[in-house]
């Protein structure tokens, strides 16, 4: 199954960030197996999170394995951290690989958070990987992902 991703609808901020959106607008994204994401998606992640290679681990995503309704999929993200003044999680970016707008949300924490965890609900267009990237106060990046099966997509069309 191939799906044409409308990167041209990405919001202005991302555009200014130079995600190469214009060049990618006509790109076709093939549903490749495994954790190999389309180059465009990797670039979107990079432009949002910044340079640096995220290490796997520390980030956990709670999501249903099968989402019957893609319009509202509950999720929780949490990151292992002592959450002290010197060592805390600054932010967590959440992405949905195959959504028309892959960026979902950015949570900004502070040492006052006590624990780096937040919950919300997202739309998912189709079966795909959901990815969370945590930025620590030290600048280190950690990444976690979950695959969600979606029965009915929820991004309109």
């Amino acid at each position, binding site marked *: 199954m191939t799906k044409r991703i*409308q990167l041209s*609808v990405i*919001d202005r901020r991302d555009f200014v960030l130079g995600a190469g959106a214009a060049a990618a607008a006509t790109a076709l994204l093939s549903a490749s197996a495994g954790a190999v994401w389309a180059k465009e998606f990797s670039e979107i992640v990079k432009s949002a999170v910044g340079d640096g290679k995220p290490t796997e681990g520390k980030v956990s995503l709670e999501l249903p394995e099968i989402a019957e309704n893609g*319009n*509202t*999929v*509950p999720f*929780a993200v949490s990151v292992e951290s002592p*959450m002290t003044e010197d060592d805390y999680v600054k932010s967590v970016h959440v992405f*949905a690989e195959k*959504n*028309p*707008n*892959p*960026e*979902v*949300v*950015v*949570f*900004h*924490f*502070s040492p*006052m*958070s*006590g*624990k780096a*965890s*937040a*919950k*919300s*609900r*997202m*739309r*998912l267009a189709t079966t795909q990987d959901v990815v969370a990237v945590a930025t620590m106060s030290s600048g280190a990046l950690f990444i976690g992902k979950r695959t969600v099966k979606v029965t009915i997509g*929820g*991004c*309109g*069309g």
Partner: protein
Amino acid sequence: MATKPRVKVPKSAKVGDVIEIKTLISHKMETGNRKNKKTGKKIPRLIINSFVAKFNGKQVFQSKMHPSISANPYIAFFLKVPGAGEFEFIWTDDSGKSWSAKKKLAVN
């Protein structure tokens, strides 16, 4: 359109406790990807893009939303109680419209 936001905060807590704060606001969260079926024109994007939580005037949590967040956005997060005080929550949408709510927290 959006109505009064709902926020759930424990009435009281001990200093050092980590409490959960749950928030919900009703908003259509128009993604900008949908088309009007009659005219074929795109319905412009209108979402709540920012949520800020302050405790005694200091920002403790912030969330930047994109169109992939569901309608009627629900956000829950945590706070390590530094003492008694008041929360202030502010939601802002693409049109610049904003909603706010306040909640007191007592310490025992």
